[in-house]
């Protein structure tokens, strides 16, 4: 079955082994005195400079799933799938000022997770628990989706079945356990070099074989004109423009609320590293835009998605395009780029989820007197559990379900925006109101997602994230991203609730942070660690 893919598999396997070796060796990189603390295992020593941070955050945010799913979306719907580009442009100026404040206050107090910050800022372990659980729930399906990325590559090489994924994740779990955040930081170099190489070659070489960019877009236009779907095309139409902008904005607001993004930021050495990276990370957006255009190239090249289990899997269009256009050895390099691209974010996400559990559930509720070494040990174990959970998601559930969960995850994580992002600039909000707003936003978001059908996929529920405004009684055919509507509900409840709590004279929680903490930098002394009540 797979005999014609032998060269591809050898190249893929060799590169995979190379990064696995690097993952284990990473424990010795910038060798720490001890690995027995979350600062070392979970944040790589909090000392990464500009370049390492650029590779790490770039490898963290621009995942294998993105590289596979964005062109798949463009392949299927056209312009609407290109939202990933404005999304990753607006995100950096939006979060520029917030992230340096988050870094400073985390440096001053030794915070490891966004929920640590919320706990100290609003004096509410319950609110911190809500933020931590939200973060874990949103991250788990995201890890599972990285497996979908690897699977798409394996299918294109004619490898079916789940055992290769299990092996890949066992290796990943082992070196993440040993090396912590240093492993993905080191592997990210290889991943990004491969991705840049593959994409630059692809955009120079493939269009020339297809007769130029004009031909590529004309072929795409012809394809979309022939489909019955109203919203596809090379341009947006009147009804999905607002959704395009709101999806880009909502995704941008959500991105740095994900715990794995925060992990990447807190691992950097100082404020300057973050600021310079806000200017340098858009280089990845450029690559992402080019990758999105691969979807049109796949249309023009006449790629047919691989069929497995009777269903066409559009996630395979880019790997199949590479397989069709490139010589075997270079297709192997391209597949390795995607496969390794899955390992970096999967490692960081599992570390971030493990840290949330350790800091905001285990230490808060189970073992308040846990030492640094005990916390590191718990995080290491939980990172294994998280990966087992992700593999189980893929083995036991329909992959389609992971994609639904990811869709829900974006809407869900947005509901932590008032506590985490707005909390960085104001503590006007009352902790009780923040919890109420979070709950209301979650309920509204899940309800709207449940109500959205997808006639193309014959699904009655969870069919997408574009909510018809006409369902709210507005006389329009426009749609809006569910996450933004749910966030509006959340904010309305939070503001009204805060006013009500103030009127009722309910006490605020204590704020353990000081204004100067939000401006602290590398040279400033780290304040006494924030320990939970009483333990000194």
């Amino acid at each position: 079955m797979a005999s014609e893919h032998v060269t591809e598999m050898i190249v893929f396997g060799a590169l995979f082994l190379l990064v696995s070796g690097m993952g284990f060796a990473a424990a010795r990189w910038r060798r720490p005195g001890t690995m027995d603390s979350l600062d070392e295992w979970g944040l790589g020593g909090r000392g990464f400079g500009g370049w390492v941070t650029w590779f790490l955050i770039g490898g963290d945010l621009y995942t294998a799933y993105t590289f596979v799913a964005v062109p798949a979306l463009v392949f299927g719907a056209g312009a609407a799938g290109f939202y990933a580009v404005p999304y990753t442009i607006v995100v950096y100026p939006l979060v520029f000022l917030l992230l340096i404040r988050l870094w400073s206050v985390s440096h001053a107090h030794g915070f490891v997770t966004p929920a640590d910050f919320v706990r100290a800022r609003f004096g509410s372990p319950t609110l911190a628990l809500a933020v931590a659980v939200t973060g874990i729930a949103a991250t788990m399906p995201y890890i599972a989706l990285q497996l979908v990325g690897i699977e798409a590559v394996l299918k294109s090489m004619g490898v079916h079945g789940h055992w290769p994924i299990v092996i890949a994740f066992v290796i990943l779990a082992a070196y993440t356990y040993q090396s912590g955040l240093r492993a993905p930081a080191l592997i990210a170099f290889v991943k990004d070099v491969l991705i840049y190489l593959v994409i630059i070659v692809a955009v120079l070489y493939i269009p020339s074989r297809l007769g130029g960019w004009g031909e590529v877009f004309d072929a795409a236009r012809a394809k979309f004109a022939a489909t019955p779907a109203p919203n596809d095309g090379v341009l947006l139409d009147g009804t999905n423009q607002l959704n395009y902008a709101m999806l880009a904005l909502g995704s941008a607001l959500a991105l740095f609320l994900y715990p794995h993004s925060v992990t990447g930021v807190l691992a950097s050495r100082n404020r300057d590293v973050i600021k310079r990276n806000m200017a340098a990370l858009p280089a990845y957006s450029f690559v992402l835009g080019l990758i999105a255009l691969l979807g049109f190239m796949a249309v023009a090249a006449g790629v047919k998605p691989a069929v497995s289990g009777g269903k066409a899997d559009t996630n395979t269009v880019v790997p199949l395009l590479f397989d069709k256009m490139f010589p075997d050895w270079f297709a192997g390099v391209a597949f390795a780029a995607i496969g390794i691209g899955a390992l970096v974010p999967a490692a960081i996400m599992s570390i971030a989820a493990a840290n949330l559990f350790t800091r905001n559930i285990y230490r808060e509720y189970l073992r308040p007197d846990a030492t640094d070494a005990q916390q590191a040990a718990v995080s290491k174990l939980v990172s294994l559990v998280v990966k087992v959970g992700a593999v189980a998601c893929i083995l036991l559930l329909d992959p389609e379900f992971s994609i639904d969960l990811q869709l829900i995850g974006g809407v869900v994580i947005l509901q932590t925006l008032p506590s985490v992002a707005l909390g960085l600039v104001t503590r006007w909000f009352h902790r009780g109101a923040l919890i109420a707003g979070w709950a209301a936003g979650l309920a509204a978001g899940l309800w709207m997602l449940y109500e959205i059908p997808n006639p193309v996929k014959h699904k009655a529920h969870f069919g997408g994230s574009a909510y018809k405004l006409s369902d709210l009684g507005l006389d329009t055919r426009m749609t809006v991203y569910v996450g933004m509507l749910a966030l509006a509900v959340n904010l309305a409840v939070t503001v009204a609730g805060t006013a009500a709590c103030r009127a009722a004279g309910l006490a605020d929680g204590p704020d353990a942070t000081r204004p100067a903490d939000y401006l602290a930098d590398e040279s400033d002394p780290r304040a006494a660690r924030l320990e939970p009540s009483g333990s000194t």
Partner: protein
Amino acid sequence: MASAESPAPDPAPAESAGGRPPPPVGPPPGPGDRPARSDRSLWNLLLAVPAVVPLLTFLFNHDRPRLAGVPAFYWTQFAFIPLGVACTIAVYRLTRKRG
């Protein structure tokens, strides 16, 4: 909980009875010895440009003019990337503290 608020070398931070922690004992923020640090600057407003312009679909939802065969919709959005980088670098450099 409130006792955690003890960044000062104060050996025995007073446990405040109410919810509010005691007033902070950090470096004096007043116009005394050195100027208080701040992230505030009018230059920060430049960040609004790349945060808003890519969301205005009516600006670029057109096929023509094409650039090397690529519709305006796509190359315009690619062009927003250097716009964002330029604004971010400008803010970084213009708000950098000297010394």
